[in-house]
């Protein structure tokens, strides 16, 4: 156990926990877009900046990547922090101008306009990497990845073609903070447009609704730690 101070209040934390995690657990809100408690921290969106005092040094750091250390003093709302965070949001906005979560943050933080514009075609992706980490760490499918670097960096399946490892679970779609990923079921086929993936859906033996990609069933059989009972997938959740 280590002791640290966040916004004047003392907290205990496990060694290895990050500052953002401890703050959120204790009801201290720090805006964040690329952090998820079940995924490894990545420090991609830079929104979770806080001021950290360690010994004689005070500096800004992303709280999701900063480990809790004995005696750490953290401030989440100094003028420096707020100014830096507003700048980060200004930089993110042009990448996904329509995203409701970004717009809400902008309202909260009093960002009314951005001084920046995107040279690239806007694809509403802020390169936060949540989808990639969810797919690799939670699902274990490893269907998508970052490619390129610098301004050419983007998320895509290998070779920019159909994501052959994608099982259509929708975890990435669910977690994406900008809502730029879409999943649609139509005529027994599930489509994930950004991953160029189409998957055939299995029909429920009772109501006939085509509800689950065959690929997901196959994946659960092969990779699932405790595979579901025989016949589990015959019925959709409504008919089970």
């Amino acid at each position, binding site marked *: 156990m280590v002791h640290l101070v966040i916004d004047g209040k003392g907290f205990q934390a496990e060694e290895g926990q990050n500052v953002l995690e401890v703050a959120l657990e204790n009801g201290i809100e720090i805006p964040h877009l690329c952090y998820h408690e079940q995924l490894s921290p990545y420090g991609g969106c830079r929104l979770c900046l806080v001021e950290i005092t360690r010994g004689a040094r005070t500096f800004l750091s992303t709280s999701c990547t900063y480990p809790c250390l004995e005696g750490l003093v953290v401030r989440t709302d100094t003028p420096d922090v707020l100014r830096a965070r507003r700048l980060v949001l200004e930089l993110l906005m042009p990448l996904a101008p329509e995203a409701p979560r970004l717009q809400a943050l902008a309202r909260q933080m009093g960002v009314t306009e951005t001084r920046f514009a995107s040279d690239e075609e806007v694809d509403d992706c802020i390169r936060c990497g949540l989808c990639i980490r969810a797919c690799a760490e939670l699902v274990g499918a490893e269907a998508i990845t970052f*490619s390129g670097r610098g301004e050419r960096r983007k998320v895509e*399946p*290998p070779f920019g073609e159909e994501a052959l490892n994608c099982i259509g679970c929708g975890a990435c779609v669910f977690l994406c903070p900008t809502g730029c990923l879409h999943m649609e079921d139509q005529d027994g086929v599930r489509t994930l447009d950004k991953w160029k993936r189409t998957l055939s859906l299995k029909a429920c033996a009772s109501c006939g609704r085509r509800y689950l990609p065959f690929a997901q069933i196959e994946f659960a059989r092969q990779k699932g730690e405790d595979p579901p009972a025989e016949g589990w997938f015959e019925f959709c959740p409504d008919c089970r």
Partner: protein
Amino acid sequence: MGKQAIERIVEKYGSDHADVLEMLIDIQEKEHYLSRETLQYLSERLAVPLTRLYHMATFYEALSLKRRGRHQIHVCMGTACHVRGAARILEQLERCLSIKSGEVTPDLQFGLATVNCVGTCALGPVVSVDGEYHGHMSASKVERMLKRYSETEANGVAVCQK
């Protein structure tokens, strides 16, 4: 690259997936690019997800999915070189080799690309060939430089086709 050639490289590193980046660099040096088949083979052979290999192949400047020349030419287009006429040098190279930046000659001898500041601005304009730096370049020096590397020049085939 044939399976056997890849296999030799894989075994050189004891088939350890932790060394996969070194393997990719070795293959790139031999083949001057990483083919899709190569990445797919390595992915299965080393049980490394294809996504991770694709990520590396597109991230590192030393690696390329597109074929590069046996002699790879980089023209610095950084600010210091740019103001001293890098664009004219690039044009001359494109004319001499009859390719555009980002392409390779049909005989795969030369590949042409641009970079942004190689860190030797005082020598600018700078062109590097196979990692060798040529400082104070000018359009008129391009032909002589190419001849130094040309494999066909000895047979009387001129590089420049002006």
